[in-house]
């Protein structure tokens, strides 16, 4: 069980063990091939980061086009067909190519083995395969988008999606392939958590980020196959017309929605649970406190993962679903809300008697708290069945899911990027610019989506190319906010790129954090640990003065 005994086996990493200086993973092998064929989880994580950011840019451009088009009630910069395709592609790119892999595949990949004291994930080659499956699917989907693009909305509801003349098949099949990438990553992480924990790391000493990624992976493994099947059925239906969901042949379009949301509702938690995990790390690290109610937060991750599976019908209150089933889904939705509330209270509780250092990641934590509370509460409001009747498919829903799914996740993504930037690249960024851009992004995000809440209240349906003139003022406000948001991202791109090349050397642990991932070098060497593997006698984020420390038996 000692690390030396396992390193002794020859062959897997022929050259590296001879080095005595243990180069960090960034410079250990500089050829293109050493990157493209690497099985190192850190390099794979970085490659994911590159692609995910690229697709975020693509999705962001689509978003700006949508906002520009909606500046005026009539046609502004594009025709209706282009607009319909644009919002569909915005949704598909952002969800399947950005949000779902964003935190798990980038930071999960990078941090999970480090936090577990492991040398790599359980199946390193599958990990690389997952990257290439993702890219393969993305290329197919992009090819479909350039060759016509589909106009169904990302929900591709039957029977519209099975009959539209736009290019449905390649895009949906691309999404199907990306699903495999998601499944492979999920399996890999679950097995890693089960089998690769270093001695001393018991289940309830795992960092909360690991708990969150674990819960996310469970969802990925259990839900993704269902959407995979559905994507294939819709593609087949679109090409051959078997009539599975065709109302003319006794098919039930509502059944399609059941199957669709069985994946797509848990998918929301695939996007947001890792964000919760990141924030648990950051709030503990920057207030130098153990997490208040560690077990409650860990269990609530699993609770959200489980109950979240059975709340899907709240997307279908007005779809013709039965009233009784609507009520059932309503209650379960409330339970998801309770789990989220537990987390929020515990994060705030963590600060109690802490020592808060208001750095950029903590600024994002504040934004995150705001978006989670309001995104979550509007979600609860939408779940109270009768309120959903006027709100369903209006801009209120759009604003709600951008708050919780995008707001919270983007906050966590940026926070993670800043918090772990020294870990990943060994350099630091400019703190002042960091705070300025954080403020801009939080402000811009609110300015974009608060008007959309009001638009929804006022009755503007989503996916509208033209709209009655009474909605214009709020739409202009939203577009203005979106510009601010975009500007914030440009600043981040500038100073982080600068820091990547010219930033100050960070040292091993610039935040003086006691998260497990900081026990190794920054950036870490190829197999994460040099010499004897660190031991883990303390729980993560244990900041008690060693002189006074009685190892607590609580928690």
């Amino acid at each position, binding site marked *: 069980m000692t690390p030396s005994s396992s390193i002794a086996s020859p062959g897997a990493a022929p050259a590296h063990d001879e080095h005595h200086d243990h180069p960090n993973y960034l410079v250990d092998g500089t050829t293109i091939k050493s990157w493209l064929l690497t099985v190192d989880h850190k390099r794979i994580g970085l490659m994911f980061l590159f692609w995910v950011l690229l697709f975020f840019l693509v999705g962001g451009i689509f978003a700006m086009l949508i906002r520009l088009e909606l500046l005026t009630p009539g046609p502004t910069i594009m025709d*209706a067909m282009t607009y*319909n395709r644009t919002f569909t592609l915005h949704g598909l790119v952002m969800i399947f190519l950005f949000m779902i892999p964003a935190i798990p595949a980038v930071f999960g990949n990078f941090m999970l083995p480090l936090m577990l004291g492991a040398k790599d994930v359980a199946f390193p080659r599958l990990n690389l395969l997952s990257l290439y499956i993702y890219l393969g699917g993305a290329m197919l989907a992009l090819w479909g988008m350039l060759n016509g693009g589909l*106009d*169904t909305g990302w929900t591709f*509801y039957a*029977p*519209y999606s099975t*009959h539209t003349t736009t290019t449905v098949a390649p895009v949906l099949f691309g999404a199907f392939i990306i699903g495999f990438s998601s499944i492979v990553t999920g399996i890999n992480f679950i097995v890693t958590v089960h089998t690769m924990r270093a001695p001393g790391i018991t289940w309830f000493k795992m960092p909360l980020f690991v708990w969150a990624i674990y819960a996310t992976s469970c969802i990925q493994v259990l839900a993704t196959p269902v959407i995979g099947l559905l994507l294939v059925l819709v593609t087949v239906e679109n090409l051959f017309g078997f009539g599975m969901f065709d*109302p*003319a042949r006794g098919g039930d*379009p509502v059944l399609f929605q059941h199957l669709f949301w069985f994946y797509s509702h848990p998918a929301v938690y695939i996007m947001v649970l890792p964000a919760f995990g990141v924030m648990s790390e950051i709030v503990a690290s920057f*207030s130098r*406190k*153990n997490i208040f*109610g*560690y077990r409650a937060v860990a269990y609530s991750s699993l609770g959200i993962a489980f109950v979240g599976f059975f709340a899907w019908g709240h997307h279908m209150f*007005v779809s013709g679903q039965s*009233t009784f089933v*609507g*009520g059932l889904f*309503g*209650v379960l939705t*409330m339970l998801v809300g*309770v789990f989220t509330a*537990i987390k929020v*209270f515990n994060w*705030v*509780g963590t600060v109690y008697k*802490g*020592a*808060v250092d*208001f750095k950029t990641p903590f600024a994002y934590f*504040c934004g995150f*708290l*705001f978006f989670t*509370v*309001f995104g979550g*509460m509007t979600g*609860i*409001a939408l779940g109270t*069945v*009768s*309120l959903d*009747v*006027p709100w*369903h498919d*209006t801009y209120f829903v759009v604003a709600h899911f951008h708050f919780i799914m995008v707001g919270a996740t983007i906050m966590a993504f940026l926070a993670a990027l800043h918090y772990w930037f020294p870990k990943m690249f060994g350099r630091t960024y400019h703190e002042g610019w960091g705070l300025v851009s954080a403020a801009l992004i939080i402000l811009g995000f609110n300015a974009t989506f608060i008007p959309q809440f009001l638009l929804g*209240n006022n*009755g503007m*349906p989503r996916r509208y*190319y*033209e*709209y*009655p003139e009474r909605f214009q003022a709020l739409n202009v406000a939203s577009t203005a906010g979106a510009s601010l948001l975009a500007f914030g991202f440009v600043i981040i791109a500038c100073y982080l790129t600068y820091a990547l090349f010219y930033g100050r050397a960070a040292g091993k642990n610039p935040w003086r954090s006691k998260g497990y991932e900081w026990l190794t070098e920054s950036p870490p060497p190829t197999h994460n640990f040099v010499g004897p593997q660190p031991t883990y006698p303390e729980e993560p984020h244990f900041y*008690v*003065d*060693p002189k006074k*420390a009685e190892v*607590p038996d*609580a928690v």
Partner: protein
Amino acid sequence: MSELLNNILFLPEAASTFAERVDMLHHFVVGTTMVMSAGVGLAALFMFFRYRRRLPAQATEYVVPTLKTEFLFVSVPLVFFLAWFGIGFRDFTWVTTPPKDAMDVYVMGKQWMWKFAYPEGPNGVNVLHVPANRPVRLLITSRDVLHSFYVPAFRIKQDALPGRYTQIWFEATKPGTYQVLCTEYCGLSHSKMLAEVVVLPQEEYDVWIKDQRRGRLQDRQDALADTSLVPPVARMVEQGQVLAGSEGCLKCHSVDGSKHIGPTFLGMFDRVEKLDDGQDIRVDEAYITQSMMDPGAHLVAGYQNVMPTYQGKLQGPETAAIVEYIKSLRTPNVREGASEGPAYDAIQ
């Protein structure tokens, strides 16, 4: 107070009984959310300041919540959420369960327009007239893809499913004109699929509908254009039976299988008949309709050409109703025939 809140929240005018209920819950939810979020937010801000870092590597106390705190964290939100849900679900059940005395209107979504039909006529496109202070049940269907019928002022919304019906009801409280929007993405001109609900006081409504029904008789063309909006079969069969009596069909055609001046209606539909010119014909809607309009075109062997034409005497929907009635008289061993009920169209 509620007026002010509605303005702050940009809520449109509330013009139905359901809207009042929804707004009440809305205010309750928004109010509690704001108060509690402000509480949490202020507590957080206070602590960020109070517990700011004083030393770079400051040590802190090890704090864990007591069981009581944890219980509070779970129970307070749970109680509120369940209370909201209780109210919300009560209202939802209310709006999906139409009262018995509700007036029926058939609504059909079609790319990209709304058609409305009253059981006894008239039919209309994109404008729905309803009386104020009377429950109206909407039976919503679609001819092509999913649509969703949304009236912001009434706070109601219901998806239209192709080839089947969904229902929702409302009782408008204020006369006026309210916008109808489609909220389920349905293709190119989804955003242009707008319509209006005109709420009239009961007396004006009565006058309006009387005018419409009279006018409709004169304007056959319009009626023909709207036959695509067929009420459900059962209702049509009833109408057909009444019409068959009042228009004199039953003087020559029996419904019990006995032979009279004309062939019996019983089991007629979908039967293969021998014509007087020796050909076979399957009795379908087309043939029945043709026989009403031009009775001599294809005579069944053994009958005289004595039937008067009903061309111009019957409206399109009336013809359809009689056809439905004849279809309902099929003998059980005849196979289930071609479709009726809510029709379903191709999307091109």
